[in-house]
Structures are given as C-alpha cells and as structure tokens.
C-alpha cells in the first residue's frame, strides 16, 4: 500500500513506514497517519519483521512539560494554496503545478528522481510558463496584499535549473515587476534573461483552458504591441507566495502573542525579533515574508537576545565534555579497526557489507572489523568506542559516508576511547560508491573494498596531531557607529563584554542622521538619539570618534587593532571584529543634479520636507526618477531601498499638500514585503507611476510652463499609452543609488576580508553564513553588506552580535591540527607558498641560510595548496602528507 508522499508534495507515493527524506535528521523511519493499523487496526506486518522489535504501534502522544526561560518562535511559512482560488485551476488541470511542486520535480530526491515530468502523461514538458504573484499583491478575497519578496528570484532559479535539465526548454515568465532587490539578484536576473528561449512578459494573465487531449494549458495575457493573446503551454507553474503558518491563530493564542493585520507576528519595529510578549522572540518568515539569509541572522539575533535575558544561567545547563587522557601509541605497530556501515539500506542494498567486513580482516594491520547498521547512531558510536578499548585499537576507520558531515562525530568517538582524534579516517563508500554504482552491485562491493584498502594504507601513516586552543580575548571591536554598529555594540555589551566602537565621523549615527521617518511611521531621530544616549551611557562601550583604523593584526580571538582618533593613537586588543561601516549615497551626474537646485536626491528631499521648505512642500508638481546611478553598467545592482524611500516621501508630501501632483518614473517598483501596501496607498492617493525603460531614460530640461512658471520639463515615454509625456516639474527628486562606503577597500584589506563585485563586503555564504566572513572572528552587518532598510540593518546587527557572542562566550577557540608546517632545511625561499596563501598564513623569516617560509598555524586553514606548489617538498600539510596520500594511491593499485 502506498500513499501520497507529503515531502514530495504528494506527487509521488510512499509507504506508511518510511524515512521522511533521504538526508533527514534524524534519519530514522517513522510511521505516518496512513498506517492501516492506526486507521483500521489491521496489518501489523511491520511489527513482525522488525528484528529489533523497534515498532510499537500502541505508542500514543505524550505530554511533556518543560520549564524554559525564553522561547523563540520560528514556525516558518506556509506556501500559498492556489486551490482557494478557482481561477488558477490548480488541482483541476493536471499540468498546472505550484512552484513548490516544481522544486520537488526538479530535485534528484524528488518524485521522478530529478526528471521534470508532467502529471498527465509523464513526459518532459518543453514549453513552460510561470505565473508570478500567485496569492501575492492582490486585494481580493483569498489573496495577500503584500509582496512575498522571494518569488521573482526563485522563479529565475527554477528557469535556470530547467534549462540545465533541458537546454531546449522554452520558458515564459508572466510578471508584474521584476523585484531583484537583493544582493546579486540583479545579476541573477540578467543571467536568466540572457538564456536562449526565455521570455519575461509583463502582463496579467488568466488560465483559460486545458486541451482535452494533450492536456496542454492555455494562458491569456496582453502585451502593448499585440493586445490580448492566448498561448498554449505544456506546463504552467504558479509562483505561489508565502502565507503565515497554517495554525498561526492557534499558535498566537497558545503563546499569548499578538499578530499583525497580515497574520504574521507583530514585532517591535526597532527590534524585529521582539514579540508583544517579553521573553518570547521570533525569527524567520514568521516576521513577514523573508528570504533564507534574513531567517538565519534573525535566528542568531533572537538567540542572542534570549542569551541576554538568561545570561545568569549560561553554561550551567550544558555539561562540558571530559575526555579520557590520550594514550601514547606512537611506539606501537598500527592496530586498525574497521567499522563498515550499512547506512540503513543506503550502502547495504548495493555493497555486500558482510563480505566487505571479511575482506577487511585480511588486510595488513587490520586487527578487527565489524558491520554496523548506522554507525552514526548513538549505540553504534558507543560500540566503536568500546571495541577500540577492548581490542586495543590505535587506528579507527569507519567506512560509511562523506567525512563532511560525520567526521567530527567519529573523531569524538575515537577521543572517547582515549585515542588522538587524528588517528581516525573515514572511507566514503556511500556518496563515492553505493550511490554512484547503485546498479552494479558486484563492482560496487569491489570498489568499497578498494576504498577501504586505501584508507587502511593511509591510516598506518597517520600521526597524532594537537588542536590549538587559542585563548579568546573577550572584547569586541565594532567598526562603524551607525544604527547597525551601535545596535550590535549594545547587544554585545549587554552580555558583559567590553566593546570598542570606532566611528570615522565626529558624531555617532551614520546615514540615519539624515533620515527622519520610516514608511511605517517610526520617528527615526528620536530613536537615534535614544540609541546614541544608550551607547554613550553604557560603561562597557568605549566610543572612538573622528577615528581611522591604521593597523589590524592578529587572528580569531586575538586581534590587535590600532586606532587613531580624537583620543590619540590607541592599540585595541579584541577577540572579534564587526564591520558595520555603512554605505554612501551616489552623487548624481545626470538630470541637472548639481546644476539646478530644484533637482535633489531623495535624502535631500526628505531633509527639505522635514524643514518644511516652502519651495518643496508647496510645489505644484514634483517628479521622482528612480534608479539613478544603479542598475546600469557601472553599478549592476539594485539599491533596494529607493522605491520604499520615494513612496515614503510621496506619501508624506501628499499628507502635507494633497493637491501636489507627484509622478514617480520607475523601472520596476520594488516595494517588497509589507511595503507593497504603501505602494498601493500611494497609487490610491493619485501618485502617478510611469514606467520607463533603461534605453529610453526620461529627459530633464529647464523651461517654462504654459502659464509662464519657471519649471523643469521632464519628458518620458508612457508605455501603457504608448506616447511621449511632458511633465512640468517644480522639483525633481532623484532616487540616487546607495554605494559602498568610501573606506570599504581599506577596511577589507586591514581585516583580510573580501569585497563582492559591487564593492560591498562579501559574507562567507549568502544563505547560511550571512553575517560572517571567510576569515574567522570577523563579522558583518548593516549597509556595509548591501543597501537595506533600518529595520533590516537592526535585524542583521542583532544577528552579527549573536554570532560574536557565540565566539566570545568561550574561553578558547579550537584551531584544527591539520595545518601546514615547514621543514626549514628544505625551504629554498622561492616564495611560491607565500604567493598562493590568500590567508596570509605563511611569512618569510630571515635566517643565516637566507629567507625561509614559516607557517602561522592559527591562520592556516589546511587547504594544502602550498604543499603542492612547493618544489622542494619543504612544506607539508599535516594529516594529508605526501607520504599518506601516495600510500593511498599505491594501495589503490594493489588488487584484492
């Protein structure tokens, strides 16, 4: 009996007893509600066949009561269900799928093992259409008024992947705006757009009919050139938006928190991780439609705020591991134990494990071998420890999966047995064997033996290595005293750490000093002065203004930074550094900016509005031009905040002077998330939105209106009406790009971190390590990373603080023992190693015998590039030495 598999969006079927998905954690089978016994008290076959008697069908839900001091709500999101709206024909037309269905179709672990197939005939669709904003940006029953923020870009991803599946595929995307507002999104969009056979069509659509025979789906849309058209597609993907979690009302009631009018969590605008109830925090998509990086750093932010609340309990609940003393085995002959893992059926179904175990026993120096069902399971890991002790093993090999995930666990297991953890080796017989040769069982068994034999050869040569315990200086340095830097500094200081806050200007505050309100109505100046006051009053925060950093040395846990400021030259010792240097505003060279004082940037306009400048607030007509200085060849990115800023200023002006004619000339309105509501509000208030194309930019000239008023004449093409427009403007506001801060390059060089192609700081991983750098101990937040709104900068600042605190909460950090070392005698001082080490972990030292390379172990990341560059073999990567690897290569050639 098989039932629809929920993980695969119910496209394929699975048994009632199954593993949720191949890489599930925990990787154990479970029984879902489709079980015959649970439904009808029948069957019970599984109970009988389970040798370990692990199945208990009488298990019932248990109520467990736990006392906690804080709660983080991260219930995530629910994809919009298009079934609630008939017109999408989802569930009626077989070849209409949601984008979530499509993710599973594309995935190798999906319903058709990575083949994109139509439900109707199991054939590959060739002509595919995506419909954007399904359930988003709609003020109709069943729809969401907000923009879901992620669909434009995930659709582009799906298009790129579709073309990778089938280079000939024709993909059409029906959209309202392309909202590529995130870091690297603009380039991603261009990459998609340039693929052959891709059309982006700006049009509303309706799904008209399904061909009764072919089951193809017809879409009706309209384009300015041809008017209304109908076109047939093999498959239609609905780019569904994000909804709050399904049971959100119940969740809110249960936890006693309030929701906003979109049914997402109601948060504090200046601390978006705070719910309405103290002690309960929120992270991820429950705050509002968010992408993965935001979900990750709000998690760190929420975590650190819990820690702040419960600081007095820290470390009292987690037990420190104590390992037995390490046995010195350097004088012993290698005594190797091999544990061969079935990985459930992952390995065992293909590789003959018992046979492999027998083979292992014949290998030189192998004194023990056994099989295990899941080596990573707690009982099996304990078995490894026990057998290591019992059999006096001094080398342990687990033949299982990739070392990437489980090596740390097994090293730990080996340590538990009193062995140095570097006496452990992993033979990968899953990813590199059973998963590759799933159909050639015999050969796969042979290959598994080869892999283990190679591992045994290497294991004989392994050396015990010591990891380096680096002391951690508990202080942090924050570079940049804007909102992000100050928020981060306060959060770190609140947990008892000294913070050195370095600001290049005379005053704290950064760009926010020029911002008066947010679109949501926050009084930014009041908030800012409160923040500055808190920073100045905090005895743990040491502020350096008018400061420049002249030198930065050291490494994670132990940095020494030299700061020249109004306090003179100071040498600061700190364990972590946060880069929050902010960003600058582009100074336009176009549209008469700088020549005519009626042309200003959006920041300048905001200042004038706030001052109540007559010329501005009583203007008859005001034109805003979007995308000035970005989304072009020089700056190939979107500044993210300008659409929001322009709407904010437009609404403010309309409030002061409702009669004012306001025009916004835009390319795509990118009011993502909840700010979409304000876009709609602006349109309701008759702010006129006119789209322009980059190759046909608006023109601005000094002129006179018909009634003789001196004006600026703005001409642009109206793509909807198809004619040339001429607008008389009293004021022109340019949405000037946000550009990287002038000092970015120097800061990046000082702290050995990288800048991305647009000049903003480059995080370690876009999705999963959004506030960290490749260099350990250095973190990132605010607009130094990419343009962002105040609330987003605050989130990221808390996130960075959270990551800093996980580092600073430890007395030591551990650096790997697998680092390089130099045999000075063999070094000829050619400098090849120094040149390739971008970590600057190798230096020259003058000796009597000339220049010699020296490795600074704490900076070495163990990539070993220097090892293969060294002509004389003077530099060696420990744990991956030439001898060890050559022994492996030689063993590969020995036949069974």
């Amino acid at each position, binding site marked *: 009996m098989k039932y629809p598999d929920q993980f695969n969006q119910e496209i394929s079927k699975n048994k009632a007893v199954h593993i949720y998905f191949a890489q599930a954690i925990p990787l154990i089978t479970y029984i879902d509600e489709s079980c015959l016994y649970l439904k009808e008290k029948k069957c019970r076959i599984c109970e009988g066949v389970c040798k370990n008697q692990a199945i208990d069908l009488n298990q019932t839900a248990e109520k467990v009561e736990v006392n906690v001091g804080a709660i983080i709500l991260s219930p995530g999101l629910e994809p919009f269900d298009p079934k609630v709206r008939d017109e999408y024909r989802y569930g009626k037309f077989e070849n209409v799928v949601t984008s979530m269905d499509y993710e599973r179709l594309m995935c*190798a672990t999906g319903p058709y093992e*990575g083949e994109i197939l139509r439900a109707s005939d199991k054939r590959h669709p060739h002509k595919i259409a995506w419909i954007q904003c399904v359930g988003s940006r709609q003020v109709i029953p069943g729809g969401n008024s907000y923009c879901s923020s992620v669909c434009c870009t995930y659709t582009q991803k799906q298009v790129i992947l579709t073309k990778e599946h089938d280079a000939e595929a024709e993909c059409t995307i029906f959209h309202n705006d392309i909202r590529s507002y995130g870091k690297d999104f603009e380039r991603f969009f261009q990459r998609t757009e340039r693929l052959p056979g891709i059309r982006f069509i700006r049009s509303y659509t309706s799904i008209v009919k399904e061909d009764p025979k072919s089951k193809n789906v017809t879409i009706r849309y309209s384009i300015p050139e041809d008017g209304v058209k109908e076109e047939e597609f093999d498959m239609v993907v609905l780019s569904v938006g994000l909804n709050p979690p399904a049971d959100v009302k119940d969740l809110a009631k249960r936890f006693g928190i309030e929701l906003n009018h979109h049914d997402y969590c109601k948060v504090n605008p200046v601390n978006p991780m705070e719910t309405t109830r103290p002690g309960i925090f929120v992270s991820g998509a429950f705050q509002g439609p968010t992408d993965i990086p935001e979900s990750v750093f709000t998690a760190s932010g929420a975590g650190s705020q819990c820690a702040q609340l419960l600081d007095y309990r820290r470390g009292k609940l987690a037990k420190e591991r104590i390992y037995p003393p390490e046995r010195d085995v350097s004088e012993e002959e290698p005594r190797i134990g091999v544990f061969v893992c079935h990985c459930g059926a992952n390995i065992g179904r293909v590789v003959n494990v018992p046979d492999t175990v027998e083979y292992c026993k014949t290998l030189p120096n192998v004194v023990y071998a056994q099989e295990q069902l899941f080596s990573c399971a707690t009982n099996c890991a304990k078995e490894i420890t026990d057998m290591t002790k019992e059999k006096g093993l001094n080398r342990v090999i687990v033949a299982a999966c*990739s070392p*990437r995930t489980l090596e740390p666990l097994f090293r730990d297991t080996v340590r538990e047995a009193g062995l140095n953890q570097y006496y452990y080796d992993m033979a990968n017989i899953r*990813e*590199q064997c059973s*998963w*590759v040769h799933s159909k050639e069982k015999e050969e796969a068994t042979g290959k598994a033996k080869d892999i283990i034999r190679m591992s045994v050869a290497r294991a004989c040569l392994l050396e015990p290595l010591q990891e380096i315990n680096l002391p951690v200086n508990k202080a942090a340095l924050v570079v940049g005293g804007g909102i992000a830097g100050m928020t981060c500094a306060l959060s770190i200081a609140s947990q008892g750490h000294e913070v050195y806050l370095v600001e290049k200007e005379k005053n704290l505050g950064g760009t926010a000093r020029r911002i008066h309100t947010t679109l949501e109505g926050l009084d930014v100046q009041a908030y800012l002065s409160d923040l500055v006051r808190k920073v100045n009053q905090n005895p743990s925060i040491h502020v350096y203004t008018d400061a420049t950093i002249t030198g930065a040395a050291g490494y994670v846990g132990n940095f020494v930074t030299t700061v020249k400021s109004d306090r003179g030259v100071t040498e600061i010792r700190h364990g972590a550094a946060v880069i929050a240097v902010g960003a600058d505003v582009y100074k336009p060279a176009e549209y008469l900016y700088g020549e005519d004082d009626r042309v200003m940037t959006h920041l300048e306009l905001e200042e004038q509005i706030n001052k109540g400048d007559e010329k501005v607030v009583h203007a008859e007509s005001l034109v805003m031009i979007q995308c000035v200085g970005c989304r072009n060849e020089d700056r190939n990115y979107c500044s993210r905040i300008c659409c929001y800023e322009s709407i904010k200023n437009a609404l403010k002006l309309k409030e002061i002077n409702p009669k004012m004619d306001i025009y916004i000339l835009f390319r795509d309105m990118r009011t993502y998330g909840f700010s979409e509501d304000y876009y709609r509000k602006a349109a309701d208030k008759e702010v006129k939105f006119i789209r322009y194309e980059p190759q046909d930019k608006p023109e601005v000239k000094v002129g006179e209106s018909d009634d003789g008023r001196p004006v600026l004449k703005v001409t642009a093409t109206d793509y909807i009406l198809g004619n040339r427009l001429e607008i008389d403007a009293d004021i022109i506001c340019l949405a000037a790009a946000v550009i990287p801060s002038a000092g970015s390059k120097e800061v990046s060089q000082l702290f050995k971190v*990288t800048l991305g192609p647009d000049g903003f700081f480059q995080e370690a991983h876009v999705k999963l390590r959004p506030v960290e750098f*490749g260099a350990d101990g250095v973190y990132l937040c605010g607009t130094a990373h990419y343009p962002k709104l105040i609330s987003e900068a605050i989130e990221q600042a808390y996130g960075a603080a959270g990551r800093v605190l996980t580092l600073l909460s430890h007395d030591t950090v551990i650096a790997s023992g*697998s680092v390089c070392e130099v045999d000075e*005698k*063999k*070094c*000829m001082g*050619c400098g*090849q190693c120094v*040149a*390739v*080490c*971008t*970590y600057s972990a190798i230096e020259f030292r003058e000796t009597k*015998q*000339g220049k010699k390379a020296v490795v600074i172990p704490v900076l070495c*990341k*163990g*990539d*070993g*590039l220097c*090892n*293969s*560059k*060294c*002509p*004389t*073999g*003077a530099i060696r*990567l420990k744990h*991956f030495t*030439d001898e060890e*690897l*050559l022994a492996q*290569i*030689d063993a*590969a*050639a020995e036949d069974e």
Partner: protein
Amino acid sequence: MCSGRVDLEFVLRAFSNGMDGLLIGGCRLNECNYITHGNYHALTMVLLCRKIMEHIGLNPERLRIEFMSSAEGNRFAEVMGEFGNEVKELGPLGKGKGEGIDQNELKSKLAEITKLVPYIKLVKNEKLASRLKNPEEYDKLFTKDEIDKLFSEVISYYIDPEKCQACMTCAKRCPAEAIISAKNQIHVIDQEKCIKCGTCFEVCPPKFRAVTKISGEPVPPPIPEEKRTIVRKGKEK
C-alpha cells in the same frame, strides 16, 4: 584539503601504478570552499599533465578534472559512470588506440618525469598559477613545442672542480641535500638527488662562480673522490 593539493607527482604515481584513468574532482570554479581558489591550480596542473601524457605517448583523455559542488551527488554519479565507460573504451594503459607503449618503457618514462616534478613546478610556476577565464584558453595554456622543449632542454647544475673553493655555502643551502661536501673537499652535485632548483647557482660566492648551468647537454662526470682534496697554495707558503 583542497583539489589544489593534488600534486603532479600523485597523478604520475597513479599512472605509474598502472591506473587506466584518473579523475580529479574539485569545487566549482569561483565557488572555492577556501578563499584560495586552489581549483584553478588543480586545473592548470591537469592541463600541464595532459600535455606531458601526450609527450610520452599516453592518451590525455585518461586524465580528467571535473568541477562540482558537494551537493551535486547526481552529477558526480553521472560523471563517474561516463568517465568509467570512456576509460573502458580507451583500453588498458599504454595499449589504447594510438598509444602502444611498452609497460616498462612507460614506467621508466614516468619515473624520469617524476624526478623532474620539482623542476617543472619551478619553471612553469607562473603558468601553473594562472586563472583561466574560459575553456577556450585551456588547450592553449601549454603547447606541444613548449613541453618538448621542457624535456629536451632540461637544465642541470654542475660544480666546476677547478673553481670550487669548498666553502660549504652551496651545501648548506641545498634544500635537497644533494651536494656531497666536506671542508677542503671539492663539492660535487649528486645528480640523482638534485632537484634543479638553482639554489647552489645563486648562492655560490661571486668571486668563485663555481656553479654552472648546463642546458640540453650531458653533465660532465664528477671528479673522482681521491682528487677532491683542495691543496691551498696560500697555506703551503
């Protein structure tokens, strides 16, 4: 460990062990797991090695590099299957189409080249560190002529017994401990151990200039041990 850690010597050793094909997997270009972009170095090493294989009469298709992310299990399986079939088609090492080299001859050729690995690393240093932008550049990085020349004009170093003053400088600095030396004994380079790095050439005091660079010619035989003692004229007087 990075794919850039894969040494030219490892590849040669595998073929010398009789492996019929060799595949190196690295991270996708520009998606370095470290910040060193070592996969570009692995690529240039492979390109060089393929030319060397051609030079000694092996089919370069036996060596391949593929870039993939650790998440692309499917692609890995696909590539392995594909490469496996290709290698099967190529036949056993040295006996494939257009190969025809005797096993022993192949072994000795590979051994010879393995000895030259340090030298190759030194003289091709710059090219080996280049970051190629597109696959069209791959084949052009190293040319056939260049490789032929690399092996026909191998440099050797020789200490002129007439000039050597047995000052020990070169011996102390030699990274390979290839200089047979003692006080008042004319130094001799052990050509078997020498890795041709040129350190001795550079450090020999200018007033002696005893080390010479020889290219494409055989090295003169070392002077017999009994004749190595230096008789210092000045001291005699």
